[in-house]
């Protein structure tokens, strides 16, 4: 939070209370032309108040429920392939990497993801753990995607872009819905949703189960074992006690048993378990003349467990069982044995004794026990000070923490507090010119970060719009990036240092310039959005390989030190076009062309080694979705997606691919009930690989059915 005097805070709190208490009165019995002509909210995620996309300071993609259904998407990777500028991939079958203008990392760390305004960016993994979001795709109403830095509105984690997944409100559905999907990869998914009201509270209960065996077996590697078994549930309640007040409560849990491996480490898949739960409460009060006050508080907690049993320790030292038994046969260890080990290893007496004590210990690798927790509260006031000025401002506080515990690895217990303040305004300077300006100020453990954004939006005529925008973003390191100390130790003796954080780690910096053109056509309904961008990211947190000198080096002699040593520049263009061509035909097209320039310091000693990562982002990606309603009941859709070849960071080289998906759906109704049956075939062609050649995406077929009972 920016420095503020106590008095200022008190006055601010008082004004908030005043604003909240002075609700509107309807006693005047007058409405004016402004009441009739007022806009109904369209896009909220960019500036914190409702804007039309053509007046927003950044490019926005809305993926609504109808589009998700038409696309045949089976998971979030499929959904984000509908969005230009996104790199969306399977790290393994059960782990997703989804980023906007990022390199193909195992842990995509520069994009904020929210579910109903609740951040699900996990500081322990520096990314989103998509498996434990705890929502079904069918629960999604729409997704607001800000393409470009949204740090000015949503803070550090929205450095390159942001996603807000808006789930359906309980009042939108009724009765019982049952859904099931069966298909290749041993897919067995089932879910139910029940909507009803209890007194004046509308509520929804959802339960889901997902099972998959993972990617198919590949030659030499065999079966990868990257499947999952996932249970999740959530409850949501909406209470509208008065015309101006809305209170929403959400609770959820998820348990994901998913085999895990680190893409950057040559270790096999191992059993892991992730359990999460969250609680959210949100109060909104609508005030007169379009103002709105919102208070939101939530809590996330994620526990993860992953131990890979490795057996006794002595084989890792190149010893056989007989030697280990000999060295440990007598206790306490005689001095000659200690001296022998000292002679063999060069260790001092204490470490030699520790080494002997470790020889027969059952050791394990893996990330161990992890706990990540977040408490967040935010106040926001959106207002219309005049007919030409709209604004929003807010204050927030967050407490993030994580614990790591592993008898042979990473141990940490870190808590940090963050404060934030933001303000955004949209001024309609004239009939053709709209100006946007806003900024976020965050108080973080690396200092006070200021992320501003300005744009000028020009309406050339009622259908053609231009936007010129400039933004600067700052991203504080995640807690784990700043506190990494991953070591391999047994019996207190460090055998390898895997990863360390630079003690001087600071924020990443972004400077972004864009020009956008938007077209809104009416007949046929057609929306076109072109974005030209130039984004410079400096002080990128990346890993420097550095020689280490642990007492005994078992694995390699290098550690990965996280420091601000990278520079990326993305230049290019992306476009999206969607059109309802006829009453029964829909088309959506997107294309991205990105030129990446980069350099990072890979090694400092003995001589600096610089490397580039220019090939880590696909130069071309494109998608075309066509939907054709064949009759009242039948709909056919085809989705083609192309991505050029790239070298995945933390993964391997993969070739370009073009994938074609098809879906045939049949809607039916019987009495007051209805439903839909879908047959989905993904990748109607030869296999392709993503992230790693072992991730072989073959042709997959799924059959799903949904029944809605009143």
């Amino acid at each position, binding site marked *: 939070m920016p420095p503020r005097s106590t008095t200022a805070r008190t006055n601010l709190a008082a004004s908030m209370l005043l604003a909240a208490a002075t609700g509107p009165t309807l006693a005047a019995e*007058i409405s*004016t*032309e402004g*009441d*009739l002509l007022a806009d*109904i909210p369209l896009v909220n995620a960019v500036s914190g108040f409702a804007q039309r996309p053509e007046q927003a300071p950044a490019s926005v993609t809305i993926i609504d429920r109808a589009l998700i259904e038409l696309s045949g998407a089976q998971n979030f990777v499929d959904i984000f392939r509908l969005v230009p500028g996104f790199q969306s991939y399977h790290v393994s079958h059960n782990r997703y990497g989804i980023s906007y203008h990022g390199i193909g990392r195992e842990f995509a760390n520069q994009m904020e993801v929210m579910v109903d305004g609740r951040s699900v960016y996990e500081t322990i993994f520096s990314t989103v753990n998509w498996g434990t979001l705890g929502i079904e795709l069918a629960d999604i109403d729409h997704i607001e995607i800000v393409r470009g830095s949204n740090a000015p509105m949503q803070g550090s984690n929205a450095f390159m872009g942001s996603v807000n997944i808006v789930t359906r409100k309980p009042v939108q559905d009724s009765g019982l819905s049952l859904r099931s999907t069966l298909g290749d990869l041993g897919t067995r998914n089932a879910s139910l949703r029940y909507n009803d009201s209890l007194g004046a509270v509308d509520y929804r209960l959802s339960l889901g189960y997902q099972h998959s065996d993972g990617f198919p077996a590949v030659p030499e590697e065999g079966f990868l074992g990257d499947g999952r078994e996932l249970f999740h549930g959530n409850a949501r309640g909406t209470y509208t006690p008065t015309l101006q007040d809305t209170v929403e409560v959400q609770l959820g849990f998820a348990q994901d048993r998913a085999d895990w491996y680190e893409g950057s480490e040559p270790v096999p898949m191992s059993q892991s378990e992730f359990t999460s739960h969250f609680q959210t409460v949100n109060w909104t009060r609508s005030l007169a003349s379009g103002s709105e006050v919102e208070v939101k508080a939530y809590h996330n907690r994620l526990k993860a467990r992953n131990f890979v049993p490795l057996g006794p320790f002595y084989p890792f030292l190149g010893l056989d069982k007989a030697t280990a038994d000999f060295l440990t046969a007598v206790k306490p260890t005689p001095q000659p044995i200690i001296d022998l080990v000292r002679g063999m290893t060069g260790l001092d007496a204490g470490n030699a004794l520790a080494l002997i004590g470790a020889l027969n210990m059952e050791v394990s690798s893996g990330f161990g026990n992890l706990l990540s927790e977040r408490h967040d509260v935010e106040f926001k006031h959106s207002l219309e000070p005049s007919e030409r000025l709209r604004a929003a401002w807010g204050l927030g506080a967050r407490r993030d923490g994580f614990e790591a515990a592993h008898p042979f690895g990473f141990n940490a217990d870190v808590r940090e507090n963050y404060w934030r303040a933001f303000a955004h305004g949209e001024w309609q300077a004239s009939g053709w010119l709209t100006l946007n300006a806003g900024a976020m100020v965050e108080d973080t453990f690396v200092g006070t970060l200021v992320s501003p954004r300005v744009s000028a939006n020009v309406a050339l005529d009622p259908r053609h719009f231009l936007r010129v925008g400039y933004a600067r973003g700052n991203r504080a390191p995640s807690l784990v990036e700043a506190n990494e100390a991953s070591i391999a130790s047994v019996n207190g003796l460090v055998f390898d240092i895997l990863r360390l954080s630079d003690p001087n780690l600071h924020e990443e910096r972004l400077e972004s310039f864009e020009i956008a053109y938007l077209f809104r056509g009416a007949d046929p309904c057609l929306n076109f959005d072109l974005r030209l961008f130039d984004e410079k990211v400096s002080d990128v947190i990346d890993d420097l390989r550095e020689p280490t000198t642990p007492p005994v080096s078992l694995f390699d002699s290098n550690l990965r030190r996280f420091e601000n040593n990278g520079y990326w520049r993305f230049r290019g263009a992306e476009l999206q076009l969607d059109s309802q061509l006829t*009453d029964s035909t829909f088309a959506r097209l997107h294309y991205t062309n990105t030129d990446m320039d980069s350099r990072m310091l890979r090694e400092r000693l003995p001589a600096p080694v610089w490397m580039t990562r220019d090939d880590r982002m696909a130069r071309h990606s494109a998608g075309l979705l066509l939907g054709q309603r064949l009759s009242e009941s039948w709909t056919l859709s085809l989705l083609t997606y192309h991505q050029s070849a790239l070298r995945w960071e933390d993964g391997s080289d993969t070739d370009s691919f073009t994938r074609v998906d098809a879906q045939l759906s049949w809607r039916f109704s019987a009495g007051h009930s209805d439903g839909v049956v879908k047959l989905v075939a993904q990748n109607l062609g030869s296999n392709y690989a993503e992230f790693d050649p072992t991730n072989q995406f073959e042709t997959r077929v799924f059959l799903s059915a949904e029944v809605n009972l009143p």
Partner: protein
Amino acid sequence: MTGASGKATNIAAVISGGRLGLAALVGAMALCLLLIPLGARGEGAVTLILSADNDYYRQAAAAFRRTVAATHPEVALAEGRAGDLERLTPAPGELLVALGTGATGKVLARYPDNPVLGLFVTRSAWRDLMATGNPRTAPQGVIFIDQPIARFIHLATLLKPGARTLATVFGPVSALEQPALAAEASRQGLEVISGHLDSDDNPVATLTPLFRGADLFLALPDQGLFNRTVARWALYLGFKHKVPLVGFSRSYTEAGALASLLSSPEDIGREGGEWLDGYLSGRDQAPWREITPRYFTLEINPSVARALGIAIPSEEALYQQLVERLDLDRQP
């Protein structure tokens, strides 16, 4: 979402110009008296005063100018803003045309000796201005922005020909329309299910029962907070119960209403210009009255129609059907 408007000349009140009776003669003399001040500024002068520099006021002003230029090119049109009235010095008796409630209220109060026509004003706001305003020596009139209830009911029956039940919710302003709505709905064979919503009421609890069993929901314009809240929940409930919603603004249709009936800025400006023509030419013998707008714009949302499985004609065809229905309605 598209719109159709501006072809409603056949439903316009046709002012008889063939009979020059005593009333017409008196009216013409009165008009001449009123026009004397205009004549003092040459060919005549009218000042347009906008409540603010917003698109919709500017568009209405532009439509007004176009209409006046076509019918009375001799009229000198000046323009000002309500926030800058001290810079306006209208001649005594000069006609002032105010766009918006803010401008109308200020002009009525500041220039009691100038005739005033208010445009872009709701019935409730006009009622309030008349009740609270100071005495005036010059006449005033208004063309309302509100569309009459009968048009909404006709539109509803065109959208769902078999509809039997119409649901709506009244707020503090729209409650005054309840008797008119009940009478018109009854006349057209519709049953009305309605609720009342005040600031202390639960909107979802009030609206939910209205959607059960309704064939169509009619959103009536009211105060901003009421409109926003009803829109938010009624659109959700409409999709849930597959009940189409008829609204009163372009943004209502964009947000998910099946159709909206509204006075566009072009409709308002054009009708204001035609009023001026009638006033200056003497064809309108009683210009200083409260006028229900004769022009309207129809907006439909084909995506909503598809989503709700409702077959509706094209916007043009639906507009024409509505015009014909209203013409029929006007016949004795």
